[in-house]
């Protein structure tokens, strides 16, 4: 019985890690790749660690370490993803050409690195030379 539970949990974990890696290879731009990667890989590694915790039932240290790793991953993966996404937007990584709306367009002050939250104070794109980051073709992001 416990073997079946372990097999199901490890299969789900390995498959979600596989989907994360297929997603990072196939998604059309950086931001979609980031969105796929962080969530699916955290879920997969969490399920594999639950497997390890079930596998050694009479040892509390394995359970403690598994809970510590899962807690640490859930705590740190969104922070790292947020910081790398923000840095990517600053250095001008292009968005996919099919992007419908870019709500950060003109809201970041590129000198002071401050975020302007009022849409009326954004940079006026009709008068400035600031052009949007949405890519014109597939070659820029692939």
């Amino acid at each position, binding site marked *: 019985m416990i073997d079946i539970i372990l097999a199901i949990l490890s299969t789900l974990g390995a*498959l979600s*890690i596989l989907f994360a*890696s297929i997603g990072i290879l196939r998604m059309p731009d950086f931001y979609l790749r980031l969105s796929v990667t962080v969530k699916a890989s955290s879920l997969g590694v969490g399920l*594999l660690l639950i*497997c390890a915790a079930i596998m050694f039932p009479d040892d509390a240290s394995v359970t403690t370490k598994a809970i510590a790793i899962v807690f640490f991953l859930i705590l740190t993966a969104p922070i790292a993803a947020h910081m790398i996404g*923000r840095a990517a937007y600053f250095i001008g990584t292009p968005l996919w050409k099919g992007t419908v709306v870019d709500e950060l367009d003109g809201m970041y002050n590129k000198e002071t690195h401050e975020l302007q939250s009022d849409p009326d104070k954004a940079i006026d794109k009709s008068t400035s030379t600031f052009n949007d980051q949405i890519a014109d073709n597939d070659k820029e*992001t692939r």
Partner: protein
Amino acid sequence: MTLSTYFDFIILPILTLSVVLVFIRLFKGPSIVDRVIALDLIITIGIGIITVYSIRQNQKILLDVAIILALIAFLGTIAFSYYIEKQKDD
């Protein structure tokens, strides 16, 4: 099929294939941030591989390595994004 052969012949090959697929993105990624997240994902998959390996070899001590790898991955991504954001040559 026992659980040990299932881990050996199904789970570990799936994880290895994932590492190979991510390595293609690390190799060809058009910008530096693609390479940073590919490296982060490789380390995260490495934590999973270490976990499965510690189950297979019955070595509980290997999970300590996984804790250290999780720390290193987080600090590496934070450091990369800090210095990428500071760079001046836009």
